[in-house]
C-alpha cells in the first residue's frame, strides 16, 4: 500500500512546518501549498533530505478561489491511489488595536480566515466523499469560542469557521471521513512572537503531535494544550452581563 499523503495549506507557518515534519517522520508524503513557493521549496527539500519521503511545493492563494480546484486536482494527481489528508493552517491575526486603527484590515482577516478557508474546504469535500478515507484537520483558535474585547475580529472569523466545520463534519461523516477542529491557545510562532501576555504558550511541535493524533483517532474537537478545554468551558459559561465588563 502506498504511503498516505498530507496536503498542507498555508505550509510556511511554524505549526504547518511542524505538522509536515511529524507526518513525514511517520511515513507520509507531503505537499506544501502556499504563496511563498520559494520558501516552500526549501521546506520540501528539508522533508526529502531528513525523512526520505516525497515532498513538493504547490502554488496556492486562499484569497483566489478560482485557483482552488486546479490546486486540489494537482494534489489528487500527486497522491495517485494513495489516501489524501488535508491540514489547513493558514490564517492571519492583526491585533485588535491595529484593526481599530485601520478598519481596512478587516476584509483581509475575514477573507483569509473564513472566506478562503470555506472556499477551499467546500471544493475539497467532494474529493473526500469520493475517497471515503483520509482526514481533514483545520486550525481554528480558542479565540473563536467567545468574542473577547481584546481579539474579537479575529475571534469571530475563527468562531464562524468552527460553525462551518460542524456542518462539514456531519456531511463527511456519511463518507467515513473525520473533520477535526483544532483549537490551539497561543503558540510560539511568528504570529505571536513579541506580543505580550501569552499564557500557556505551546510549542509548534506539541500542536503538530496533537493534530496528527486527533486525525488518527477521528476526534471532533481538540484543545491544545489540554488545559484550554476546562478554561474555555468556564469562560463560555460566564453570563454576558458579567463578561462584557471583563478585560480579557
Amino acid at each position, binding site marked *: 500500500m502506498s504511503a498516505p499523503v498530507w496536503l498542507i495549506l498555508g505550509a*510556511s507557518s511554524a505549526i504547518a*512546518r511542524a505538522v509536515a515534519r511529524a507526518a513525514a517522520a511517520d511515513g507520509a508524503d507531503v505537499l506544501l501549498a502556499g504563496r511563498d513557493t520559494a*520558501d516552500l521549496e*526549501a*521546506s520540501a*527539500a528539508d522533508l526529502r*533530505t531528513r525523512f526520505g519521503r516525497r515532498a513538493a511545493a504547490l502554488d496556492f492563494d486562499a484569497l483566489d478561489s478560482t485557483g482552488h480546484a486546479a490546486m486540489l486536482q494537482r494534489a489528487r494527481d500527486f497522491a495517485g491511489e494513495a489516501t489524501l489528508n488535508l491540514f489547513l493552517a493558514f490564517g492571519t491575526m492583526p491585533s485588535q488595536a491595529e484593526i481599530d486603527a485601520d478598519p481596512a484590515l478587516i476584509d483581509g482577516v475575514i477573507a483569509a480566515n473564513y472566506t478562503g478557508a470555506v472556499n477551499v474546504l467546500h471544493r475539497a469535500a467532494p474529493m473526500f466523499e469520493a475517497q471515503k478515507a483520509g482526514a481533514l484537520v483545520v486550525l481554528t483558535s480558542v479565540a473563536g469560542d467567545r468574542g473577547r474585547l481584546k481579539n474579537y475580529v479575529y475571534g469571530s472569523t475563527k468562531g464562524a469557521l468552527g460553525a462551518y466545520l460542524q456542518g462539514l463534519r456531519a456531511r463527511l461523516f456519511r463518507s467515513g471521513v473525520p473533520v477535526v477542529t483544532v483549537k490551539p491557545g497561543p503558540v510560539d510562532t511568528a504570529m505571536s512572537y*513579541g506580543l505580550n501576555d501569552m499564557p500557556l504558550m505551546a510549542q509548534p511541535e506539541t500542536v503538530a503531535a496533537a493534530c496528527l493524533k486527533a486525525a488518527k483517532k477521528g476526534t471532533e474537537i481538540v484543545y491544545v494544550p489540554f488545559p484550554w478545554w476546562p478554561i474555555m468551558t468556564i469562560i463560555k459559561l460566564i453570563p454576558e452581563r458579567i463578561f462584557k465588563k471583563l478585560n480579557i
Partner: protein
Amino acid sequence: MTRWKPTTLTGWGRNRITRTAAARPERPRELDAAVADTRDVTVLARGAGRAYGDAALNDGARVVLTERLDRILSFDAASGVAVCEPGVTFADLLETFLPRGFMPPASPGTAFATVGGAVAADVHGKNHDRHGSFGDHVEWFDLLLADGSTRRITPESDAELFAATIGGMGLTGIVRAVAFRLLPRATPWVTVREKRIADLDGYLESFAQVRDSVTFSVGWIDALARGSSLGQGILETAEFHEDRAMPAPPRPRRVPVDLPSFALNRLSVRAFNELYRRRVPTAGRERQRSFSKLLYPLDALHDWNRIYGRRGFYQFQCVLPDRTARAGLRSLLETIAGTGNPSFLAVLKTLGRTGRGHLSFPMRGHTLALDFPCGGGADELLHRLEAITLEYGGRIYLAKDSLLSRAGFRAMYPELPRFEAVLQRVDPGARFMSDLARRLGLKGAA
C-alpha cells in the same frame, strides 16, 4: 515589518546579563527584512547561545535568532556534502545522517549547537588530530552582508572573506546557508577505551602514542590535584564499532533550580573529581557507548549551567603549541591547583593543525579547558592564566572566553590585521557587532 521582542540574553556561562531586542525570522526573506530594519543600530546573529562568554551577545542593540531557520536543503551521499540553513543543530545532523553512515566532520561538546555557530567559531571536536575543525570541511556559504546583499563565498570567489568568516564570530555578516562535507564510515556505536593517567608526563606520553592513530581522544584532568599527582586523570580513546542499530535516545534530565553558590566548594568538587577518576579501574576498561554519548556527555543533563548558581561561571580554554606544552600545562595546572578555585573536571585534548580562518582557534598542540564559578578571585585567576598562555605561545578560544584583554588578543591572533582589513571592506559601518567585538576592540570599538 519585523517584530522585535525585548529579550534578556546571557552566554552559556551566565556571567553577564544583557538586554536586547530580538527578532526570530522563520523564513529567509524575514531574515533580510530584520537586518534591513536595523539601519541605526548594530545587529548580531545568535544560534543556540552555547558560546560561554559574550560572543553571542549584543547588549542594548539587536540580535537575530537563527533557531527557526533550520532546514536541511540537500545532501549528496556520493560527495557527503550537505547544505543547511544556519539553525540546523548537530542533533539534527546526527539524527538525519548517522543512520546513513555519515557524521559531522567536527562536533563541539554539545549537540544543541548550530551549524551557523559552528562556522562562526570554527568548532573542533575530539577528532581534531584526524579530521581538523568544522571550517576545514566547508565548501561554501551564502553570506548576508552589511549592505543587504547576499553573496555565495567560496575559497576561490573571495579567499579573504571566506577566511574571515570561518571562525569570525559572526562579525562579517550572517551565514544563511552553508555547504559542508560530512564524513563517511560512521556508525551509531563506538568502542571506548578508558585508562587512568597518573600525572601530566603520563598524559603527554599517552597522547603522543595515540593522537596519530586513533579517531577520537579526550582526557579528563582532576584540576585540584597537586604535587606528584598534578595532571592525574582519565584518557578516553574511541573507534567506531560495526553495530548499526540506532540506540534509543536517552531521557534528558533537567537541573530544576539554580544551585546556591556554596554548593560548589573545594570539598565537594574534590570528592566529585575523585569519584569520577575511580570509576575507571586501575587496569583500565573497554566498553561500547553510543556515539552521541561520546560526543555530548553533558547533554543528558539539560541546563547543567545552573549548577554554578546565579553568579554564573567562566570557561577558560587555551591551546599551547606542542613544543611548550609540557612546561606550559604544568604552569597552568600549578596555578589553578594553587588557588584552589573549585574547577570541575578539566578537559585536555590534542589539536592537529591550524584552522583556515583568520581567527580560527586550533593550532597543532595541546588544549586545556576548565570551568570556574564566578567570584572568589576567578577574574584574577583567569588573568594569570591568560599571561601564562601568552608566555608559552598559546591562544585563548573566543567562543569560550569572557575576560581576554585586548593586548592579549592581538598577541595571540597573528592574522588579526587581515581579519580587520576584511571587516573594513565588507562592514565599514560596523553594523554587525557583539559584546565580544567591543571588548576586544574590533571594528573601531573605543
